């Protein structure tokens, strides 16, 4: 019996000890991490600033491009940069951003959110830490920067409907305005994907003889797109004349599947993003000029624009309170690319630094080819 008591006492002591340690640590830090309201915008000296670019993963070319742009801006401004890799997980994204905020430096962020619903917790954390954030691509529609305050500088994206229309039209034309296509949306809850699909569907209204056979979400993933396309090819076989994808990564997977099925000369493709491999394919006229429609916008442009917007707000060069709604919930221009006008766009990728220099000169809203063209949120066609 003595045994049990001693062991229980030991256990209790251990537990109490652990609890005390944690408790002390907790109280110790709660005194310093008191919530700063971050309501009033104060100019932050440049040397106190850390740039943070948060991307969804590091294995997608678009994300890699974003990192490139962030790096170029960091070099141009001579301000240190941290990259957050969310690894596709909202949890990881939020916790890492919070960890960086916790380091105490004044943080200037560009976040490509994993999911729309991540925006509020990130923005709130940034606000509490007195940093400045610009969100790219995903946020809830009714979560507006001006309702949060100065710390949520802006939300920026390229219009998805426009992209979908652009590529939808090109694809329909590419298959001769008659035939069947399949579509590969991205992650289903992504507004980016949803708006692009809406654009596609809208475009198809003008092409009554083009039929959208089926949509299968492929999660922005090359591998999944490959498998889904394989299945759809098995299902529809030669009926498929065109493949539309919500981004190029998925289109590249689809192209591979179509190649494997031996139909690369018969099927046309259209998608968004004009990734470097896509440029190569278009130049080489892969298939029978298989890629008929693309859009041009760049991860490095998005990242640099977003980061620079936040940075200007942090240094006080941009008075957030004076920014227009258009500047705080912004749609940036995308360009429709066809094999004919491809050459106009290949020049940008060779000189990322040059573009970023231009961005710093012209400001975030007036740098070609990604200029500010309107205010979000996007209106879905027909709604």
């Amino acid at each position, binding site marked *: *019996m*003595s*045994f049990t008591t001693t*062991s229980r006492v*030991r*256990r209790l002591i*251990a*537990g109490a000890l*652990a609890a005390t*340690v*944690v*408790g002390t*640590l*907790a*109280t*110790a*830090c*709660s*005194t*310093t*991490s008191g919530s700063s309201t971050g309501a009033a915008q104060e100019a932050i000296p440049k040397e106190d600033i850390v740039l943070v670019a948060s991307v969804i993963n*590091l294995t997608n070319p678009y994300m890699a491009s974003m990192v490139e742009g962030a790096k170029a801006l960091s070099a141009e401004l001579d301000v240190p940069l*941290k*990259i*957050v*890799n969310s*690894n*596709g*997980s*909202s*949890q*990881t994204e*939020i*916790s*890492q951003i*919070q*960890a*960086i*905020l*916790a*380091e*105490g430096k004044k943080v200037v962020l560009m976040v490509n959110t*994993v*999911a*729309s*619903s*991540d925006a*509020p*917790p990130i923005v709130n954390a940034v606000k509490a830490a007195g940093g400045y954030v610009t969100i790219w691509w995903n946020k*809830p529609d*009714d979560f507006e920067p001006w309702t949060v305050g100065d710390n949520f500088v802006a939300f920026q994206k390229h219009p998805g409907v426009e992209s979908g229309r652009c590529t939808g039209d090109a694809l329909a034309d590419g298959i001769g305005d008659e035939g069947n296509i399949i579509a590969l949306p991205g*992650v*289903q*809850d*992504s*507004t980016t994907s*949803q708006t692009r699909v809406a654009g596609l569907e809208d475009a198809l209204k003008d092409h009554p003889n083009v039929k959208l056979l089926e949509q299968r*979400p492929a*999660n922005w993933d090359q591998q999944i797109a490959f498998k889904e396309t394989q299945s759809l090819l098995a299902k529809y076989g030669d009926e498929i004349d065109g493949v539309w994808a919500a981004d190029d990564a998925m289109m590249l997977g689809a192209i591979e599947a179509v190649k494997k099925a031996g139909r690369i000369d018969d099927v046309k493709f259209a998608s968004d993003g004009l990734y470097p491999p896509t440029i190569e394919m278009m130049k080489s006229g892969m298939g029978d000029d298989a890629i008929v429609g693309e859009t041009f916008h760049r991860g490095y442009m998005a990242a640099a624009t977003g980061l620079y917007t936040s940075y200007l707000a942090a240094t006080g060069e941009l008075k957030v309170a004076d920014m227009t709604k258009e500047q705080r919930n912004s749609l940036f221009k995308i360009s429709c690319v066809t094999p004919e006008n491809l050459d106009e766009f290949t020049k940008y990728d060779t000189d990322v630094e040059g573009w970023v220099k231009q961005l710093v000169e012209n400001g975030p809203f007036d740098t070609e080819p990604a200029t500010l063209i309107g205010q979000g949120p996007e209106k879905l066609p027909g709604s």
Partner: protein
Amino acid sequence: MSQTTTATPTSPAPTADGTPRRRARSGSWWQRLGPPAVFLALLLLIVVLQPNFFSGGGIRIVALQATPILLIALGQAIVIGVGSLDLSNAAMGLLAAILTASTLGSLGVVSPVLCVALVTLVGLVNGLVFAYTQVPSFALTLGTLGILQAASLVLSDATTVYVTANADVLAWMFNVALAGLPAAFWMAVVLAAVLWAVLRFTTVGQGMTAVGLNETGAIFSGLRTRWLKVTAFTISGFTAGLAGLTIIAQSGAASSFGLGSDLLLPGIAAAIVGGTAITGGVTNPINVVFGAATIALLPIGAAAVGVPPQAQSLVYGAVIIVAVALTMSRARGAVVK
């Protein structure tokens, strides 16, 4: 009461007739203190490399991130405690989050209660199917996982569901702080303490431990083993439901792909880093708190210490293995599956 004659050994050693003696009580102190020790060691390492970690509220962030993981892990630890595995509990949490998000506006306070109850019911069904069809839990819950994922997609229409009103009903969980840590975290800790007490001081807890250690023996002792297993799965559903609420409290929205969609593996890892023996029968919910804190600390700490983002997943994997190798109970004989 101690015996010193050789005929009555009190130390862990094979008995004289050669049956391998299971490691008795000594040595299990590490089992009790290992998980907090691993957590504190990791914390210390991070603090040394990144002194600002504390002052910036690093602990608060760890607690914040650990909360949903902890809730999932508690249920998982209880299920592992009866010798099974619940691959579906994270999906249950997400389902609860989606349901809450879509009903909170109209139902108010009733909504979270209802959603947790519903998901608890799903856990109960899981347990009943498991107990009565005797499909191995790994396979069964893999199947339920698929069903729940589909349910989430259908109920959310594959998109993000936002809380439209009454967000205050849950928002306090992370807005109110006690001793610097969010209330939700303390709730989870209290739940852990309650579960710890249940396992140690109630007949149900003892029964679940017996089932985990030797189910056949438990059956022949007349224990309601099926009911005990159903209870474990129900608890898992319940804690998953609570985890779903914390997701809503954190982000005010839920989707099949967003926050909370990847809690399964962290939950299992947290339970196991918290000293839960995967073979069953050895579960200490208090230590699971430290397991969850360790798992939550990893990405935050890795970023703080400056591990390159590309290498983070590698570090994550390595730390899980090392942490478990250090803290796991090797008490139950030599056979490790």
